[in-house]
């Protein structure tokens, strides 16, 4: 990346932020426009495409039969994977998942898991032996910043759109029936990400803001306004006061988005 241009841009972005402004005329705590479209991949059990400004993420869910983990024999299994698809950015390269895509998938996973968004006990068919496994595959299609929030929103939207096959047990064998019921969802975590630029926090950083940020802070907020997951990123630091301020703003932003999406 051309670091000279980035540095010129950094000065401009920092000066704007000091005045409470941003490159695209948002306030420091504004999100870009959010658009969600559900059920666009017919072959997937659930799907959603989200546009967060120009950032575009598609999530498809698949449900398969599998075995529960030995330490949670009564619970279904959730698996989140993220692909930074090469067509989404000139900086994404084909190949096995790198640390960025692994971090992205684990942060999305943590929000869903820790908020207990899926009623995993209802996925279990035969304790210790058979269960439904929910695969959540995050597909980043266009990178214009804040992949974490976009992916978390898309994943949750796809889960809300996911159908679980009905089944019956015949002579000890699981038989999948042609009908479906909705996946049991009981919480709706919303992840709010901040970029720290020149000592100030901004919500929902765009790509250029991400290129010059010192630190990144993401917080997942559940239906009750409690915090269920946090991830700090980048090689910079934040102060304890900034962390507490971020937690408060994240709570408000999550409420706003929840209202908008009617979750």
């Amino acid at each position, binding site marked *: 990346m051309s670091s000279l241009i980035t540095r010129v841009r950094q000065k401009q972005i920092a000066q704007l932020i000091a005045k409470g402004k941003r490159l695209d005329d948002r306030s420091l705590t504004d999100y870009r426009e959010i658009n969600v479209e559900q059920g666009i991949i017919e072959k997937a059990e659930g799907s959603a495409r989200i546009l967060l400004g120009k950032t575009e993420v598609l999530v498809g869910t698949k449900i398969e039969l599998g075995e529960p983990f030995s330490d949670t024999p009564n619970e279904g299994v959730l698996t989140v994977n993220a692909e930074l698809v090469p067509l989404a950015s000139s900086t994404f390269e084909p190949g096995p998942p790198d640390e960025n895509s692994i*971090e992205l998938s684990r942060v999305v996973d943590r929000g869903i898991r820790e*908020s207990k968004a899926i009623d995993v006990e209802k996925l279990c068919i035969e304790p210790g032996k058979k269960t439904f496994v929910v695969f959540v595959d995050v597909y980043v299609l266009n990178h214009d910043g804040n992949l974490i929030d976009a992916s978390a929103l898309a994943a949750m939207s796809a889960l809300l759109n996911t159908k679980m096959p009905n089944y019956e047990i015949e002579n000890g064998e699981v038989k999948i029936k042609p009908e479906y019921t909705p996946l049991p969802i009981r919480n709706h975590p919303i992840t709010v990400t901040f970029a720290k630029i020149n000592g100030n926090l901004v919500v929902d950083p765009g790509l250029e803001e991400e290129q010059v940020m010192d630190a990144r802070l993401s917080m997942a907020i*559940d239906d009750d306004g409690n915090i269920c*997951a946090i991830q700090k990123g980048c090689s910079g630091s934040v102060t304890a006061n900034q*962390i507490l301020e971020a937690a408060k703003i994240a709570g408000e932003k999550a409420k706003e988005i929840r209202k908008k999406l009617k979750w």
Partner: protein
Amino acid sequence: MSQKPEKLIDKKGTRLDGRKPDELRSIKIEVGVLSNADGSAYIEQGRNKILAAVFGPREMHPKHLALPERMAVRCRYHMAPFSVQERKSPAPSRREVELSKVIREALEPSIFLEYYPRIGIDIFIEVLQADGSTRCASITAASVALADAGIPMRDLVSACSAGKIDGTIILDLMDTEDKMGEADLPLALMPNFNAVTLLQMDGNLTQEEFEKAVSLATEGCKKIYALQKEALKAKYVNVKEADE
């Protein structure tokens, strides 16, 4: 898998291993334990046993990974197959890849990276035995190893976890408390700058509980900071005495 104990903390506020809610486990830090590394440290925190080694500053290989304006830091957090109850495959897991990244990002702010353009350092962390909050103990040890390697640093990085068990906010979670508890919040701090360089959380905390957990973890980091300095002094005072 062990069954969940009835209570993780009793009415008097005593935890399974006899600690009070705001009490650290016993910590032992040794400096310069590996002769081939440029800097190294060993930490025991409760039953955690972790080695950290630093190689460099040295020429970056492969060369295209060198950065024109600053030192490139590579970090590998790895758990030994025998470090946990059920054997862990030695191949790096997704968890280890993520932890390697966040540990690197927790240590980088403490290093004067701009002093060494095009140069690299490697930080290798091996968890020999794991018993909860290993990422924190790893950061604590790795920061001491960086100092032992003579890398120019703004401050040491001290790390400690806080969390919630049975509704009580506690310091320095051990494995059972992490797995059975309601929240885990690892935090790393450069104490002289009050700068938080690592923050993660999973579980469920209200805003008030979160505030309390952050301040408890911060206090824990400051106690660990004193131990890190002591460990460094212990080695270098001995070296000086041997010289005289």
